[in-house]
């Protein structure tokens, strides 16, 4: 510690106070308030009514809740593996000696800087059924038009593709930072021992990158569970609700049907789900350290 002083506690509190107040007011209070709301039947206009676990019970009978949850899982499974691998390969590329590595870092990362609505509108246009670039190319090659965003079988894949293009660069930065921390000497001695590129990758890069991989995968899963914007902009949840994800259903219940209590209960289920996944994940990943 810097300087011992009998005013430490006073100063510590004074310096912490502005943040703590905002934190209590805009994070801690809403969390507790939200939990309370979830026990009420509450639609802005009429007065609220305490119904205990009523919202949670109706949740488990709500088909749309299950399908939205399922779509969220689908999205997580569709995007996570590809985003991890793509980010890793990009990081290998920008850490290589290729002349294009600088351009690569910019090109891979730039989509991530753009806002979700720009990404959503752009890809909705690329995927447009009649005039979009992809279908025009398909027709040129003598293929029939594909309903990228209108075919229930394909819509979620299309949203996933846009997401992969949008966020892979983020994982690249994380992996790349991890790779830069591996000392050059380790690689050199391996090379002197005659190890080839793939051998080094398998026996040095990947094992030493383990902490980064563990962190990146967790962040990726959490981020994918919170998907909303791209779906909202690209498909609005359609076709036939086939891409409606959990956050969208929370949003609809709260701000279209004004079922505040029900919506809050759902938000808490999502919160719990993310918590459980994070804890289980850390238990499993932390065990064999």
């Amino acid at each position, binding site marked *: 510690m810097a300087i011992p002083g009998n005013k430490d506690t006073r100063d*510590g509190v004074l310096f*912490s106070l502005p943040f703590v107040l905002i934190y209590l007011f805009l*994070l801690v209070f809403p969390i507790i308030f*939200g939990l309370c709301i979830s026990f009420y039947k509450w639609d802005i206009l009429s007065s609220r009514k305490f119904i205990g676990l009523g919202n949670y019970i109706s949740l488990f009978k709500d088909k749309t809740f299950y399908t939205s949850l399922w779509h969220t899982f689908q999205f997580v499974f569709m995007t996570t593996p590809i985003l991890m691998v793509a980010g890793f390969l990009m990081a290998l590329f920008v850490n290589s000696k290729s002349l294009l590595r600088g351009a690569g870092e910019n090109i891979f990362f730039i*989509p991530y800087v753009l806002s979700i609505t720009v990404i959503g509108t752009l890809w909705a246009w690329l995927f447009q059924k009649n005039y979009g670039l992809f279908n025009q190319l398909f027709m040129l090659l003598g293929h029939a038009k594909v309903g990228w965003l209108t075919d229930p079988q394909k819509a979620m894949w299309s949203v996933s593709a846009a997401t992969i293009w949008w966020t892979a660069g983020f994982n690249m930065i994380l992996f790349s930072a991890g790779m830069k921390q591996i000392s050059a000497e380790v690689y050199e001695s391996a090379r002197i021992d005659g190890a080839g590129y793939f051998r080094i990758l398998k026996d040095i890069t990947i094992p030493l990158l383990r902490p980064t991989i563990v962190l990146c995968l967790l962040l990726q899963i959490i981020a994918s569970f919170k998907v909303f914007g791209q779906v909202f902009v690209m498909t609005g949840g359609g076709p036939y609700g086939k891409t409606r994800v959990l956050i969208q259903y929370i949003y609809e219940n709260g701000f279209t049907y004004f079922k505040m209590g029900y919506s809050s209960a759902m938000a808490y289920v999502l919160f719990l789900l993310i918590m459980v996944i994070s804890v289980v994940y850390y238990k499993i990943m932390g065990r064999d350290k």
Partner: protein
Amino acid sequence: MKKKILFIVALVVLVLWIFPLVWLAITSLKLEEDVLTDVFRIFPKHPTLQNYAKAFSSTYILKWLWNSTVVSVVTMILTLAVDAPIAYAMAKIKFRGRQILFWFVMAGMMIPFQVIIIPLYLQFNSYGLVNTLSAAILPRLALPIGIFILKQFFEGIPDELEEAAFIDGSGRGRIFTTIILPLGKSALATVMILSFINAWNDFLWPLIAISDTAKYTITVGIANFQGVHGTDYSLIMSGAVIASVPQFVFYFIFRKKIVEGIAMTGIKG
């Protein structure tokens, strides 16, 4: 030979990766009627800026850009104003409850923002703040990750500097403003940039908190744009280009800091 092949593969991947953005720019320069009939022309037959003129004149796009700028800049400044002092306290002041406070704050990083949108909305509604820019700003101020970054950095500043100032009779406030803040410049810049980008790209919360078209931020505005001008693709694309320009500029100015910041923290969403 092998090297050449790898080079070409890399080049092709990069060109394909950037292509959607090029396509965005190209579409925005096409005449509305050419968008549907002249799909493959890389250089538009009749390049035109009329979409941009239309976007500026027939929508609130300038207003939205302004709103986003206000929201992001104010968020950035206020975030620093509350994050830096507590980070300093945690790094350098030995006070009771410091450890508990640290874990209490860090726990906030685990909570998905989406969980609190309903209570936050009700809260803001009861203060009469819904549909104001303050509503878009306030919930973004508590940024635990910012504290984490600053704390790590401040811990690295040698204690001797503070001790010397103390002996010269400086108080804690003076030390904070004349020693800690100037030395912590690069960490402060990282936090500023992260909070700016967060605020600029925020979508769900401003979508909920603001319902008046003229008060939209640019992200909500562009989403709305697509709803209203659904088939006018060249106009929509010009709107998307306009919305992206500030982000591009920001990225190229602070490129290194942005990358460092993400590498340091691994924040997402």
